[in-house]
């Protein structure tokens, strides 16, 4: 009886679905090629020690998604909708960062401003974009997906306009540390950035009412208002936080290449970020959320992507396999399907008793 309870609690936990998916993927890889889990310590061309291996790749390339999942979860919970402009705003924030770093010159000899200044500018730009979306959603009561469609359409154009449609290259090798390795540390820098973000959001959720208020607004706006919460402010705030996450993701993205390609940078990342939230078992219609499940969801997606690459799936065809996995996951986590299975189990259980 006790066992059953534990099982029930486990199954109903939000972390259950992403965890099961993660374990499943791990088992598939283990059966296919145990070498998947091998991590080797080598040196890169600059002679610095680096860890390499598929697991490291997942941790490294899943970073942007993990960071975006934080903001996307808050936006989803507060507004009951999703922001589809994150890819485009990454382009804007990244472009602004490059503009500051390169000072409008596409091939500068040295960087024109400290990296921190450029990053802060990117943060401000990201937050402004977030605020724009947030105001459309909260003040003008436009559905989030549609409101963010505006920046989705214009974002990449604005990004190109910021740099006069040129593709500046950052000359300073230090800038590439953020998306690569710091000399002497074999773990990808992005991992530290994600850990930093997670610690910050954990502290914020623990010591402020942000989580509670966000859920209250998402569950019932008018009763939240009656309880003295300002739903407009909370919604705008959630979009601004997402804007901040976008700026961090932009830093990583731009740093990886030391440049930017407006039309393809972070393409389709918004879809992956939304999937991460959905995989984490969070209702896309808002309300209660579990931040950790979303972040785990993000890494599940990256795990899946890397696994598919391992199986020599072409990058263009990747989407089809992803879609199948997503549909299966979503179908099995759908309330109606769960209800159906519960009934099935109930029906089967007495039958078994009789048989015994």
């Amino acid at each position: 009886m006790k066992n059953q309870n534990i099982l029930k609690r486990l199954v109903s936990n939000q972390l259950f679905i992403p965890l099961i998916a993660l374990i499943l993927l791990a088992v598939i890889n283990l059966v296919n090629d145990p070498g998947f889990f091998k991590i080797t310590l080598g040196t890169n061309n600059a002679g610095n020690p680096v860890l390499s291996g598929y697991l490291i790749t997942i941790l490294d390339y899943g970073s942007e998604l993990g960071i975006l999942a934080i903001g996307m979860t808050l936006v989803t919970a507060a507004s009951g909708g999703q922001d589809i402009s994150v890819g485009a705003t990454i382009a804007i924030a990244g472009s602004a960062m490059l503009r500051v770093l390169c000072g409008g010159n596409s091939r500068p000899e040295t960087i024109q401003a400290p990296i921190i200044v450029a990053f802060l500018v990117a943060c401000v730009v990201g937050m402004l974009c977030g605020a724009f979306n947030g105001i459309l959603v909260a003040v003008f009561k436009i559905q989030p997906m549609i409101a963010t469609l505006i920046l989705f359409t214009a974002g990449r154009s604005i990004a190109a306009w910021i740099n006069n449609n040129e593709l500046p290259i950052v000359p300073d090798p230090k800038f590439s540390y953020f998306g690569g390795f710091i000399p002497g540390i074999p773990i990808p820098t992005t991992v530290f950035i994600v850990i930093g973000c997670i610690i910050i959001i954990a502290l914020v959720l623990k010591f402020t009412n942000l989580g509670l208020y966000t859920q209250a607004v998402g569950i019932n706006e008018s009763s939240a208002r009656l309880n003295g919460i300002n739903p407009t402010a909370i919604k705008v705030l959630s979009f601004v936080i997402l804007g901040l996450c976008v700026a961090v993701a932009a830093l990583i993205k731009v740093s990886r290449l030391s440049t930017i390609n407006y039309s393809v940078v972070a393409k389709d990342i918004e879809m992956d970020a939304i999937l991460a939230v959905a995989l984490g078992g969070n209702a896309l219609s808002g309300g209660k959320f579990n931040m950790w499940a979303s972040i785990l969801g993000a890494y599940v997606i990256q795990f899946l992507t890397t696994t598919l690459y391992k199986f020599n799936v072409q990058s263009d065809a990747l989407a089809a396999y992803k879609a199948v996995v997503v549909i299966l996951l979503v179908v099995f986590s759908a309330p109606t399907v769960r209800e159906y299975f519960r009934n099935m189990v109930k029906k089967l259980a007495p039958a078994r008793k009789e048989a015994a």
Partner: protein
Amino acid sequence: MKKNASFAMIMLLLLALFVGCGSTALKNKTNNDDGNPQEEDSIITVGFSQLGAESDWRNANTRSMQASFAADDNYALLYKNGQQKQTNQITAIRMFIQQGVDYIVLAPVTESGWDSVLGEARDAGIPVILVDRRVDVTDKNLYSCWVGSDFELEGKKMAAWIKSYTESIGMVPEDLHIVNIQGTIGSTAQIGRTRGLANAARENGWDLMEEITGDFTETKGREVMAALLKRFDNINIVYCENDNEAMGAIDAIEAAGLKAGPNIKNGDIMVVSFDGVNIEALEYAKQGKISCIAECNPMHGPRVKALIDTLVSGQTPDKFNYVDEKVFSSISRVKKIQVDGVTYDIDLLED
């Protein structure tokens, strides 16, 4: 009163939109005097449908066209970016026809599928000049002439260079394990350069392990190279069909802890590429990361303008016009190469 206010607000927004459109249109007045009958006869309008802005080569090509026509007051150039899609280019040509341009310059994204739209241009009496890639049409008279590079010759030059270089360091042909990161499948450059390598590999007995597209982009080049490095452990020559792919491939090689360079006997992976437009790629070539670059000259503008001048004066220009192209390398071992009986000098890049 509130209703009035909202009505006024909507009208204001309408006005704003209208004015917004108007100002866009007004701006156009200065660079396209199409609607103005007095100036119509003196200015020759040229519609230029460029296929996209996918690489530095393409951007240099666009700039060259724009610069050559901007320099002459008798011409107005209407530039259209096709964003890598034939549909967009066909739409652009139809738009040029409606706007009544005098000449159409087309840099086609693919070879096939141009019959009907070029037929429309001919029916409207507008001559078409092709740039860079060619088109595969049943009636060659659908375009007046073509300007571009001999891509197969570029491929042959590169193969000849690889042959003389590897022979000079004493490698046997069977030890050359080559992968070809191709351009956008179906483009003239891809077809010519792929053919140049494939024929040479067959003739010389090289091990051409894989041909896979990198779409002429850095991102795709990196991705493809990373995958190839995981699949094969004996690659020693990477043949990239443009510089952007080469830079992506070098990134992937370095990320895998290997070295891109000409010392293939000591475990380097030799990268060769085409175009030679990108400053960074030339820098790579100086450092030896890219061992050899076969130039693909993007400066078509002056040539196209000269051809149009010929057409304006009523003469018939040559149907096919090739631009001159060089071979760059920082390795001094190979001084000259021979292709089809013609000798080409190697331009030595030095720091």
